[in-house]
């Protein structure tokens, strides 16, 4: 976007006016003293380790999954073969996010949708198929369970499979997600446990992992899901830390595990890497600085290792265009550059077919190749925090920190992050920004190549959307019947009764959830317990 007159104001996405150039004078006094801090020194805006990517490359970590568990397994193996260095399990939205089995009326009404956005995993048998032959003991696995009410089931299923294979849970690497931004802000489900029950689940997961899976990241807050819904970068940061303090305050209140350990567990987060390269790189720098500040000031945490915020980034799906989709390879690469310049530890690049469908095999391969080219050929990994000391970058980092804390405070004034989800205040903020961004494009103030300019009507579509498998529903229904017919019925029923009892108490739900999975209780049966005990979240917006 170029202003009509060079003297006109240009705004960053975070509504910060940008000058046409910066000098040392622009860097706020409060930040000037941080300029000479080296990477590896507090407050860590320059990175947690002095040798950065020289000592440890970022993890190539792609969201993947569709169809039957074996389809997802095949795709994950394809990605690992192509150079992915961790793997993510993606579950079918219809069943997983709602904790429905495929025979639920809401799913039956949309049977062709089943398996379109992830594999259907209704029992531990399905999860075992999906994980067949995958290096669970050595590779960093994402068990899925992105949506809050699904997380305990998805995690217990993953861990139950690991146990059955003889792996020691105390050394098992990996991550859960259980993200409030996705569940209650970005991708609202038709049915969901209320936010207070969700907070309790996440507290239980954090405590359980501390005891039994010390190498596991129990929950992972995804700023991405706020940002791709419309929150600006400063709001993405402010709301992420407002979310984090809900978890940490809950853990502190419970008083069962040291706050340092819980903070370490909550310190694996994800952000969106969008298209404004410098602002996004500054966002990652600001995030590390804010986390280290927050832990010191609010929780008096002095252990420097805990201050290490580990960041996973996903490039902005909403920036991928439907028209001329090959242009998205360029967008994906540039958004990935912003994340790498920001010093993130893990990265997923959206498929070039993102605006049409879930990724085809080729789109997935290209997402890996983009990262390999950046890692191996460009020299981006040679020097840690290569933007450090830039008048512009240091100024914008400092301004973002200030603006993000202001948003954090605004949330606190309104009763905290959960209250702002329940009231719809965050949704209204996101909607306002969406509208503004859309109107800028609509009015011609901002351009999107191939969409608002540089049209090519002779070849409007170079690809069609990827279509997964067409038998996901039928196979899932068959397997559901099979598991109910062949499991130890009494054991499953006892486990489900125990689950209900624990849900009604203040005990940790994870041990009994492990029992449920090991007794082959199914997703929909667990969901029925939740619906009975917790009821439904009242959505603040109609969607």
């Amino acid at each position, binding site marked *: 976007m170029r202003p009509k007159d060079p003297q006109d104001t240009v705004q960053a996405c975070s509504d910060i006016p940008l000058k046409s150039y910066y000098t040392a004078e622009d860097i706020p006094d409060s930040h000037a003293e941080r300029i000479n801090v080296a990477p590896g020194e507090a407050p860590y805006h320059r990175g947690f380790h002095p040798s950065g990517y020289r000592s440890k490359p970022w993890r190539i970590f792609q969201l993947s999954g569709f169809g039957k568990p074996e389809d997802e397994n095949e795709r994950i193996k394809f990605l690992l073969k192509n150079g992915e260095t961790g793997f993510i399990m993606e579950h079918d*939205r*219809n069943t997983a*996010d*709602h904790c429905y089995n495929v025979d639920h*009326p*809401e*799913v039956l*009404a*949309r049977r*062709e*949708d089943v398996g*379109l*956005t992830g594999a259907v995993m209704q029992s531990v048998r399905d999860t075992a198929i999906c994980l067949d032959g995958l290096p669970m003991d050595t590779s960093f696995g994402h068990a899925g369970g992105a949506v809050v009410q699904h997380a305990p089931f998805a995690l217990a299923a993953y861990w139950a499979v690991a146990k059955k294979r003889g792996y020691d849970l105390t050394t098992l690497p990996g991550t859960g997600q259980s993200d409030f931004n996705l569940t209650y802000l*970005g*991708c*609202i*489900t*038709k049915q969901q446990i209320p936010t207070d029950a969700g907070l309790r689940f996440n507290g239980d997961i954090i405590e359980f992992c501390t005891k039994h899976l010390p190498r596991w990241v129990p929950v992972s807050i995804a700023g991405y899901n706020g940002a*791709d*819904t*419309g929150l600006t970068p400063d709001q993405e940061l402010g709301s992420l830390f407002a979310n984090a303090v809900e978890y940490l305050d809950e853990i502190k209140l419970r008083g069962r595990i040291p706050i340092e350990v819980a903070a370490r567990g909550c310190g694996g987060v994800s952000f969106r890497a969008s298209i404004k390269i410098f602002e996004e790189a500054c966002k990652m720098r600001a995030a590390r600085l804010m986390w280290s500040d927050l832990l010191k000031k609010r929780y008096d945490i002095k252990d420097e290792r805990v201050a290490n915020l580990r960041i996973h980034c996903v490039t902005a799906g*909403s920036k991928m*265009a*439907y*028209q001329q989709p090959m242009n998205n390879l360029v967008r994906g690469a540039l958004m990935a550059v912003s994340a790498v310049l920001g010093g993130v530890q893990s990265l997923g690049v959206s498929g070039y077919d993102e*605006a*049409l*469908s879930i990724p085809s095999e080729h789109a997935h391969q290209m997402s890996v190749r983009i990262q390999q080219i950046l890692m191996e050929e460009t020299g981006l990994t040679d020097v840690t925090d290569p933007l450090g000391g830039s008048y512009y970058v240091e100024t914008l980092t400092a301004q973002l920190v200030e603006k993000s804390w202001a948003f954090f405070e605004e949330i606190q004034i309104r009763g905290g992050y959960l209250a702002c989800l329940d009231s719809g205040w965050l949704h209204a903020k*996101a*909607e306002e920004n*969406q*509208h503004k961004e*859309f109107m800028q494009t*609509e009015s011609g103030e901002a351009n*999107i190549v191939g*969409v608002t300019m540089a049209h090519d009507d002779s070849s409007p*579509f170079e690809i*069609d*959307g990827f279509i997964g498998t067409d038998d996901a529903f039928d196979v899932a229904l068959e397997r559901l019947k099979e598991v109910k017919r062949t499991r130890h019925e009494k054991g499953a029923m006892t486990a489900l009764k125990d689950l209900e009892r624990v849900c009604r108490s203040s005990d940790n739900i994870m041990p009994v959830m492990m029992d449920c999975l090991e007794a082959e209780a199914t997703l929909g049966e667990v969901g029925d317990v939740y619906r009975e005990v917790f009821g439904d979240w009242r959505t603040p*917006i*109609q*969607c």
Partner: protein
Amino acid sequence: MKPKRILMAKTGLDGHWRGPTIVARALRDAGFEVIMIGMATTAEIVAAAIDEDVDLVGLNIGGHIDVALRAVDAVQAAAPDMPIFAGGTIPPHACKQLEAKGLEVFPPGSMLTDIVDSANRLTGLSTAP
């Protein structure tokens, strides 16, 4: 004149609301009354279209095209003259299937002015092509 009424529904169980919300706001700004029912089954969409006495049905499609086609068939069977338009993450092959049933289709990258123009045309407020 009474404002024309538009029903907006999502055919899938995927609650990404960014697209339909932007569209609903543009339609309201253009003077339409928009009734959002969110994620709805075919039966719920048909019932709402009749009960709410709408002039136009808008479907947000993010899932399999067969689910959307079933909703279109059901609305057209229950109310043969009801115009329908659709938007969302709809791949080219699926756009063609919807267009074959007489729908106007707005995939990602569509302009709000074009969507509002379509609503005006489909509800008889304008005769512009």
